[in-house]
């Protein structure tokens, strides 16, 4: 049976893993290559590395960090943050990424999704959406690391991106990010119903029950978390064991 994926996310700033709350107040959490290896050994199904400062400082992605992290990582590895062109995507793939996540650049130039998919396949293109509730059941899309709102709702943008060739949606709830208050299940389910590609839920993981909720009510194909794993608040193996006990199909033993 196809299992629900548990994805460990490394938010990277200047070559170090950091974690904040609602996209601000960053704390140091370690070396990306070491953390990726530790999470893989600990049972993570996939690693996502996001260069969170790339877009606004226009630094491009940290290719050396990607290379170092990819070297001995034998599970899927996604890299995002500041990828603005096909050439930049090529460089990230060359450095060892299996998939790239694009966000702001895709909103600015939606054709970029198609261009990267045509070259590397849809399976290699993850559309990252940062969304915030409008208070009326709809969610607004934000770009540039959650700084700038754009005139699109998350559902319509997800649908369009699928049509343009995105292979997965990485959906972050800005309202929940870093709070530990639980994933936004309503938002996740709305996106999952709107598209037929896998949806990765992100933002808000605080305990095992939150993962159970997002897989059941949120209909997520995968769930991503960062701080809950980095600071040892939760062992991924233990999390999976508990998910299995709750009848959620997971890769366990792993």
């Amino acid at each position, binding site marked *: *049976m*196809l*299992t*629900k*994926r548990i994805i460990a996310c490394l938010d990277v700033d200047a070559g170090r893993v950091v974690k904040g709350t609602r996209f601000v107040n960053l704390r140091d959490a370690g070396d990306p290559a070491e953390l990726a290896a530790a999470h*893989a050994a600990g049972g993570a*199904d996939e690693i996502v590395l996001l260069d969170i400062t790339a877009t606004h400082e226009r630094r491009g992605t940290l290719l050396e960090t990607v290379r170092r992290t*990819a*070297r*001995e990582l*034998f*599970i*899927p590895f996604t890299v995002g943050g500041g990828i603005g062109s096909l050439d930049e995507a090529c460089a990230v*793939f*060359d450095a*060892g990424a*299996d998939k790239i996540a694009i966000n702001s650049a895709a909103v600015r130039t939606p054709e970029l999704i198609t261009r990267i998919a045509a070259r*590397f*396949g*849809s*399976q*290699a293109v993850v559309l990252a959406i940062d969304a915030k509730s409008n208070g009326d059941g709809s969610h607004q899309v934000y770009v540039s690391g959650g700084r700038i709102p754009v005139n699109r709702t998350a559902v319509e943008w997800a649908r369009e991106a699928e049509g343009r060739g995105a*292979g*997965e949606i990485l959906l972050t709830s800005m309202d929940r990010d870093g709070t530990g208050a639980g994933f936004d299940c309503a938002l996740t389910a709305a996106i999952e119903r709107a598209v*037929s*590609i*896998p949806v990765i839920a992100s933002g808000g993981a605080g305990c095992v029950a939150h993962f159970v909720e997002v897989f059941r009510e949120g209909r997520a*194909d*995968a769930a991503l978390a960062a701080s809950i794993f980095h600071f040892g608040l939760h062992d991924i193996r233990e999390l999976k064991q508990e998910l299995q006990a709750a009848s959620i199909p997971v*890769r366990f033993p*792993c």
Partner: protein
Amino acid sequence: MITIIDYKAGNLASVQKAFTYLGCVTEITRDPEVVARASKLVLPGVGNFSATSVLAESGVRGAVEQAIARGVPFLGICVGMQWLFEGSEEAPDTSGLACFSGACARFPSTVKAPHVGWNTVRHNADSRLLRGAEPEFFVYYTHSYRAPAGDGAVGCTNYGGEFAAVVERDNVFGVQFHPEKSGAAGLRLLGNFLQC
């Protein structure tokens, strides 16, 4: 020495990295002459089945056929495995190598496609590639088309019905999943291929 065939449609770096990790020397080539005299061949691949038409045009296909005929171990990964069948619904004008009978088809509309994530392979056949593997083990998939669970299948996965996860006959091997992305289970399989 492992010769990895480059046809501009694959995650060559990942596959190469895995063999390097296993202590193996690798080379990447598009040259039919290099392919013809290789001692072990790997054809990775993601993307569209039509991309394999480059292999016929460049003469690599003929070189692969020669190598296989003289007993060189060959491993096809993902689209590289599908190429070992007669063809694929994805690109009806492109023919495969037909080492295994049947054609690849898209997943039924009852399940999400692409099939992305970790799923189980079940096997009970005698297989050199799966030596030491648990009767049921997890591997990482990402694909929209699959080969029939028939001719040559030594391991199968269920997603919208059974399909071939691993095929094997004599010196020809294929895996639909990505062993280079399947953690310890994948590395063991690649290690087994090195022993073939």
